[in-house]
């Protein structure tokens, strides 16, 4: 991994990220955690007994662990009965809304299959791709995105089956009309 900037810039970027993620903590507690982490990094680099490089700073941060782990440890201690930890990050509600919206759109696209299967297939394919990419990249609500991707994928299959059925029905050779008996009158 390429690390850019000075050691202090790398460390400050980590601390800024941690500060943002600890938005739910009381200000005094947040500052105490940040000061302790800063001190830990200072001591860790000071133990090198030489001018630290940016690689040293990154190595110290790697040992410290991701800011997400620190926040999880903080959130874990907030409620002793907590078994499943949900880390509250800025914008979490918006991201949850987005994930639920993707599921809702996937379900709606199933209804579109009845009206216009070709349009539905395109929509479902797009939703499946978007949901899969989101599930891979998102740090939260990945199960919601995976559910949306599954629903959209099922929709793609259903729409494809409907389209193929319609086309095969149109391609079938036309049945000759029943001969209409002609009755001629007497004489």
């Amino acid at each position, binding site marked *: 991994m390429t690390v850019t900037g000075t050691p202090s810039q790398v460390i400050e970027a980590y601390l800024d990220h941690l500060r943002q993620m600890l938005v739910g903590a009381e200000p005094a*507690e947040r500052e105490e955690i940040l000061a302790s982490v800063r001190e*830990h990094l*200072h001591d*860790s680099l*000071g133990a090198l007994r030489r001018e630290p490089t940016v690689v040293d700073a990154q190595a110290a941060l790697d*040992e410290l*662990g991701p800011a997400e*782990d620190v926040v*999880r*440890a903080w959130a874990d201690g907030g409620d002793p009965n907590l078994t499943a930890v949900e880390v509250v990050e800025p914008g979490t509600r918006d991201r949850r809304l987005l994930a639920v919206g993707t599921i809702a759109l996937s379900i709606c696209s199933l209804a579109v299959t009845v009206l216009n299967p070709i349009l539905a297939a395109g929509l479902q394919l797009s939703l499946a791709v978007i949901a899969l990419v989101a599930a891979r990249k998102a740090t939260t609500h990945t199960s919601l995105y995976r559910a949306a991707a599954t629903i959209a994928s099922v929709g793609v299959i259903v729409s494809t089956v409907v389209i193929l059925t319609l086309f095969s029905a149109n391609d079938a050779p036309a049945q000759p009309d029943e001969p209409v008996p002609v009755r001629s009158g007497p004489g």
Partner: protein
Amino acid sequence: MSGLDRSAVLANLRRGTLEYCVLAHLDRGPSYGLDIARTLGAESALFDSEGTLYPLLSRLRKTGHVTTQWRESTGGAPRRYYELTEDGRAALHAFVETWRQFADSVDAVLRGKSA
């Protein structure tokens, strides 16, 4: 058991025991963050990320199990030292007694299962 199951078990065990490991470390004398992290971190089962100690230390200070004081360090900025309080020591002793009984019970059950 899958890796995911193991990490979930480990996370649950750590949740209830790590703070007492910190108190046990401080029972040997006052210590600072990096020293606590490196000593406890030598036992890989206790935590994956050193940073997870700091919310815990902050909580232990708030609950009165540890106090902090600044001390001069050799050739560096002053360090925040954590020191066990009497409440912390009492909590540690209660844990040690309970833990032994608990661990014995769990071991007995597990031995019975494997027999």
